[in-house]
């Protein structure tokens, strides 16, 4: 199907998978500053599925949408380097404190601003929350059906999309009419690497809030090359109801947060020697733990 309009939802997340030694403070709590901000892994799988549709169907446009602080524009650039056509950063203090529902509401309002959209693709979940809620909630807010846990978007013919889903205990192939929200699993193919040509083209792409303290010649460069302009929307650029945003639009409240502190307990320390291993096995067999 020609001329598809695809929106990819992406999130910049702290890399919680690589919580190294310096990421834990002496008291055993998380040192957030030490965690790298990365493109949420499953959102990269989602981007790849979008780019494959673009390769397959002429005239397809892939637009990234992210919500976050100014520095989240980094992941829009990352998407442009890999083949996305453009991107928007949704950034405003009014969105602060949003739970998944308020986040979904803001994203859905931004998508409405984009006109007709055929497919929205997002990662199944983000590694900082692991909720898997934003995709389905955005779909519900837009009155769009959804296909979650996608491993492959097989194809789109006659305004119908066919998707292979990977579930806990098997696979399922489903089809449904556009427009459609699709969320993609980590079991889907990895995203293609950056393309050198696109890196050259977009390395100076910036969102408005990244242009605060730049030199004049940089502004001139941007004026001459409009594609370097990453769209940035504040709450005033999209149509929203204030009470649905941020903290007031969030039905869930965090009552308390407990940092997980590792507690020491008495343990027997063994060396990887024959004598110690022999001893260990004798003990385990004697107390009927094994055997």
């Amino acid at each position, binding site marked *: 199907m020609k001329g598809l309009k695809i929106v990819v939802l992406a999130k910049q997340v702290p890399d919680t*998978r690589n919580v190294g030694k310096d990421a834990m403070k002496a008291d055993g709590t*998380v040192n957030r500053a030490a965690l790298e901000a990365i493109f949420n892994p499953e959102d990269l799988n989602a981007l790849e599925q979008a780019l494959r549709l673009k390769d397959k169907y002429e005239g397809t446009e892939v637009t990234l949408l992210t919500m976050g602080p100014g520095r989240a524009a980094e992941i829009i650039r990352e998407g442009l380097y890999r083949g996305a056509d453009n991107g928007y950063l949704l950034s405003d203090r009014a969105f602060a404190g949003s739970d998944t529902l308020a986040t*979904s509401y803001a994203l859905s309002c931004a998508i409405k601003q984009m006109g007709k959209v055929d497919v929205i693709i997002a990662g199944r979940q983000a590694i900082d929350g692991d909720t*898997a809620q934003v995709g389905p909630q955005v779909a519900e807010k837009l009155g769009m059906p959804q296909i979650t846990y996608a491993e492959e978007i097989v194809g789109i013919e006659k305004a119908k999309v066919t998707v292979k889903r990977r579930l806990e205990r098997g696979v399922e192939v489903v089809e*449904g009419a556009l427009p459609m929200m699709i969320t993609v699993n980590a079991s889907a193919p990895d995203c293609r690497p950056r393309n050198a040509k696109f890196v050259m083209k977009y390395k100076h792409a910036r969102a408005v809030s990244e242009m605060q303290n730049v030199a004049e010649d940089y502004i001139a460069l941007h004026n001459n090359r409009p594609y370097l302009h990453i769209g940035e929307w504040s709450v005033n650029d999209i149509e929203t109801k204030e009470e649905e945003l941020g903290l007031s639009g969030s*039905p869930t409240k965090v009552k308390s947060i407990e940092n997980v502190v590792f507690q020491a307990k008495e343990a027997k320390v063994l060396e*990887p020697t024959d004598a110690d291993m022999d001893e260990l096995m004798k003990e385990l067999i004697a107390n009927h733990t094994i055997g």
Partner: protein
Amino acid sequence: MNNVFVYCEIEEGKVADVSQELLTKGRKLADDLKCQLEAVVIGSNLKGVEKQIIPYGVDMVWIADDKRLYPFTTLPHTSIIVKLFQEQKPQIALMGATSIGRDLGPRVSSALHSGLTADCTSLVIGDHEDKKAKKEYKDLLYQIRPAFGGNIVATIVNPECRPQMATVREGVMKKEILSDAYKGKVKNLEVEKYVKPEDFVVTVIERHMEKSKVNIKNAGIIVSGGYGVGSKENFNLLYELADVIGAEVGASRAAVDAGYAEHERQIGQTGVTVRPKLYIACGISGQIQHTAGMEESSMVIAINTDPNAPINAVADYIITGDIATVVPKMIKYYKENTK
């Protein structure tokens, strides 16, 4: 009105384990709140399904039986739940954190504007005070879950919106029949009144479901590997040890992500929770998202090259060394001592 609801998933004609686990937890919450426990089942050929539900202490079972409702698709199940919840106004609604519950739950919560907390590891009733608004709330559902990659544990509440919704992964709660003689009612829903034709926009054209071959949830001994195992080949050592001592092989998320082991072996916050009598952690650093899924093991042996690995904090035996050295020795001395 104001009761506790559990959405029961159907798997090959049977109520899923995770749903029965939630019924057991739901019964406990309903007792604490002095209200009733109700269940919803949506599918096809459901005659007699209540026999798998009521013994868990369920007072009312709502059944929507129609051949278009199995296998699960999002919109018809959402429409039924949303309308039923609007009519029955539950205070709490629980679902499995499965590919069904995590597809359906957010959709329902968005339609009802009620808060949903995913992957809870504990659910208890308690009071809450909103200091800013100077409001007090009695008997809310504390939805307790790890967040931020498991490095923090958050308690979430939904003070104003109903139902308070939560999903829980399989194996986290214990399932326990309350009484085979428990008396509950059954009500069949008129499906046509709950679904619209356009809800059937997504159709399942192919399905290959396999019975789970791996059974780490019920294994007495688990040999589990992490990213530190280093390669798929090294993982074979773990299979050898497991074979010799009669164990199942598990894995951390990092090991699964690296392709060392299949997803169904994943233990931890985003995998299954296990409580074996012996857990042998090989090359697992022991981030909380992993330990959350195994810390109730009766005994833990940690094998790691890093003497300061966090896993050591939950270990009973700490072996500082390389998997390739330690595991073959364990196999050798197990064999020698059992001759």
